[in-house]
């Protein structure tokens, strides 16, 4: 299976979401009973930012070395993007309703649970959107 540069860049995003889930989500899962203050989140936020910068720098450098040609964005890419972002938008709307529903039906006292829930929903939506985008690139 020969993948195009565009498809590889989508896979990089999917792998990032998976790595983020494996590395950072357990911390927020374990600390659901915690009330976070801004000072608590600065350390974790810095870790996340450093990870994001290092990950994408390495991934895109390797991609540029492996694929010398520039990514040509054309009308097919626009159509695939519009389809996948539409799905992403609908899922974000749905996840917002789920989030509000959980907030109403449970007695959440700590913001740790809210942070975990938001991150989880964002990651799920992001992964589904990227997988759908990848699927369209392969089949359309």
């Amino acid at each position, binding site marked *: 299976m020969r993948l195009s540069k565009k498809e590889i860049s989508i896979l990089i995003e999917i792998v990032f979401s998976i790595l983020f889930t494996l590395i950072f989500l357990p911390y927020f899962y374990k600390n659901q009973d915690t009330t976070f203050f801004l000072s608590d989140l600065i350390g974790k936020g810095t870790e996340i930012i450093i990870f994001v910068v290092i990950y994408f720098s390495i991934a895109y450098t390797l991609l540029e070395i492996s694929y010398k040609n520039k990514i*040509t964005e054309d009308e097919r890419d626009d159509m695939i993007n519009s389809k996948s972002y539409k799905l992403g938008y609908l899922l974000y709307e749905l996840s917002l309703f789920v989030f509000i529903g959980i907030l109403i039906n449970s007695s959440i006292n700590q913001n740790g649970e809210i942070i975990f829930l938001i991150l989880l929903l964002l990651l799920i939506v992001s992964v589904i959107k990227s997988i759908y985008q990848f699927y369209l690139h392969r089949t359309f």
Partner: protein
Amino acid sequence: MVLKNNLKEFRQKKGFTQEELGKNVDVSRQTIISIERYRYKPSLELAMKIAEKLNVKIEKLFYFD
């Protein structure tokens, strides 16, 4: 009715690779592959660009089956 095309045939007659034709009409190789496999229906603008590049009438290149 399905919109089909003779793109592969005309492209090969003109001696273009998918990559070369794509570059000539400002689209990726994947887009040319998708059109040839009837997966993607190009816009009128792109269809006309391809027809012009291959020096063939658009109705000969694209047809309903």
